[in-house]
């Protein structure tokens, strides 16, 4: 499907969508009802762009992508919705067709590389088996060359070819996973918290590798994460999830400068600043029972602007308040000219005080310092594997 470009799109000209997820639902059966981990998620991924998926623990971001990848196992199940890739309805595929399309269309960089590699297989064997399964066998020499080339792309030394996973460091294992993910030149790569399990220095290296790989291959990516600072540097658009639903999708700049949904706003505001001291704002209210979501907007119980309509009607699907910027919130309505206005700007939005502010502690504290040293800005000595510096800074302290 083609879409005219708007402000903030990844490329000029019309954009092709490579993945369309529509009303995806993933539920888990429990003794007292289905937990709606992912409850009607809709988004589109365009060619060559990177979409970030953020949200707090339990927001359903990993579940949503496991639904897209069709890796949901009992007691979970895909309870509805559709996933269309390059025009192909993925949920309608039979088992064998699905298996054959895996990795070539959609590949995955998993969260814990520590555990994602088979301990009894060499690194090269694990990369080779996916290539051979989908492309057929090749000679030993050809395979070796191909694997070594993949290593080079991610900045891994060739000597690890015949090593076992336990002999590698965490960062190297993660990069092996990246190499594996790009092996078949997939259309979409899902990176599930690819840098979360690593320390800051290694995180940077891995993030740089990801960026480099993206550039070289032009692959579309979905990046799940909760390190907002890192997200800011790596993605084109950000989707914010709360309690199994997407509440806002916006180009990354806009999201940081002018978040539209109350939840996104809190999220952005909760990022400690490196340059100024601010009181910490904390979300009040209580979360709802995931088995019985309230009618109306799911954020109603924690929103400081909750109105009566929020409790009874779900927000109209989705409101595109600006090109490429959609939000699910009753606070945005059309005015007389058909334009969207934010009711908080017009003074119509109530305040229920569900958000509380925390007073900053005394000046002697070291909450966040503006020194460059503490947060490793700059590239002093932090380039051990020679991947190169594409301007990514380690952003410790800027994550939730």
């Amino acid at each position, binding site marked *: 499907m083609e879409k005219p470009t708007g402000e903030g799109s990844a490329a000029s000209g019309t954009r092709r969508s490579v993945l369309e997820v529509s009303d995806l639902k993933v539920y888990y059966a429990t003794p007292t009802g289905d937990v709606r981990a992912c409850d009607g998620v809709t988004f589109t991924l365009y060619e060559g762009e990177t979409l970030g998926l953020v949200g707090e623990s339990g927001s359903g971001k990993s579940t949503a992508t496991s639904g897209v990848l069709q890796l949901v196992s009992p007691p979970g199940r895909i309870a509805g919705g559709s996933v269309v890739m390059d025009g192909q309805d993925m949920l309608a595929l039979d088992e064998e067709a699905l298996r054959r399309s*895996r990795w070539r269309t959609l590949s995955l960089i998993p969260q*814990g590389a520590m555990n994602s590699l*088979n301990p009894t297989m060499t690194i090269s064997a694990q990369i080779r088996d996916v290539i051979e399964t989908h492309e057929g066998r090749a000679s030993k020499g050809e395979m070796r060359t191909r694997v070594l080339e993949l290593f080079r792309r991610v900045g891994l030394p060739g000597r690890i070819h015949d090593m076992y996973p*336990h002999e590698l460091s965490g960062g190297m294992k993660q990069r092996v996973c990246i190499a*594996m993910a790009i092996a078949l030149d997939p259309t979409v790569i899902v990176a599930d918290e690819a840098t979360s399990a690593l320390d800051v220095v290694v995180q940077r290296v891995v993030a740089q590798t990801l960026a480099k790989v993206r550039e070289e291959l032009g692959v579309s990516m979905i990046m799940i994460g909760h390190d907002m600072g890192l997200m800011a540097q790596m993605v084109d658009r950000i989707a914010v999830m709360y309690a199994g639903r997407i509440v806002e999708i916006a180009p990354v700049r806009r999201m940081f400068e002018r978040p539209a949904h109350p939840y996104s706003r809190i999220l952005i505001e909760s990022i400690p600043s490196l340059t100024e001291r601010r009181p910490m704002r904390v979300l009040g209210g209580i979360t709802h029972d995931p088995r019985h979501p309230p009618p109306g907007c799911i954020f109603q119980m924690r929103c400081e602007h909750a109105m009566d309509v929020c409790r009874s009607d779900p927000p109209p699907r989705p409101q595109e308040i600006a090109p490429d910027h959609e939000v699910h919130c009753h606070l945005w309505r059309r005015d007389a000219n058909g334009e969207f206005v934010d009711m908080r700007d017009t003074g119509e939005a109530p305040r229920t005080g569900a958000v509380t502010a925390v007073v900053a502690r005394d000046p002697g504290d070291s909450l966040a310092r503006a020194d460059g040293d503490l947060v490793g800005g700059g590239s002093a000595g932090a380039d051990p594997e020679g991947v190169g510096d594409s301007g990514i800074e380690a952003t410790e302290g800027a994550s939730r």
Partner: protein
Amino acid sequence: MKGIPTSYLANRLVTLVLTVWIAATLIWLIPRLSPVDPADIMLGRMASGAGSVANADAILASFQARFGLDDPLWLQYLKYLKNIVVFDFGLSTASFPTEVSTLVARALPWTLGLMILSVVVTFVIGNLLGALMVWERSPKLVKVAIPAAMVFTSIPPILSGLLLMWVFAAKLRWLPLTGAYGINVEPGWNSAFVLSVLEHGILPATAIVVVTFGFWALGMRGLMITVQGEDYVQLAKAKGLKARYILYRYMIRNAILPQITAFALKIGLLIAGQVLVERIFAYNGMGKLLYDAILDQDFPVIQGVSFVIILITALSVFLVDLLYPLIDPRIRHEG
């Protein structure tokens, strides 16, 4: 051998030697703790059986000297150890003056053959069935049938042997009742003999397999469930690898590691069970030899057989322990 850390090897060797030594000592010591001195019994029996044998006196005398039966206890012990090392267990009292080692040597191949066959078959089948019980893609029938079959594992091998014998040999007469090979068949490498051996081996082997596979299946089931939840298995599915390949290379290959350790631990029990089965089927192996010796109160044979069996067990454990690092790369590179 590549990749086996020397400290591990040394440790296993020490255990092996210790085991054999302690076993030998126990075997020597226990009869001597009984109120009746077995040495006297032995000599007495030998003497009574010596009537028809030429040179009986000389043989008896040399036996006494070899084992130092007139020497103080500690010297006897040392001589005993020295003899054990060269597999000299003395003379059988029941079949005087045959050397115990001769009798053992005759029976050993049969036991080994049956043992290797049944142990390997049990391990492979047991673990495979255990894995199939857990694999999502096993047919429903398989998943139900296996636990049902596992009920049989509750029965000790002797009893299963009895049952099988009764059903297949006594009642249905499909298979021979006893013996390692037919009476009218000439031993040797001819097809009639080999066939006969196989025919006679089926029931004993089945008896052992039927009751021991359940242990492996049960253990493997638990291990497979754990492995199934591992990240690397999920990633393998995401990679779109073929299901059977994932089963063997990602799941079984990792789940089996603790089973190999358990195997080393269970060998002792397996062999004991086998001895009993041999007895029931009058299979010409060490089991029958042992049983007859018990009946005849033939001490040297009892000791000799026991020792050899323990030696085999210890060696098997040692070999399996050596095998482990070859299969699990994580063990390989330590130390």
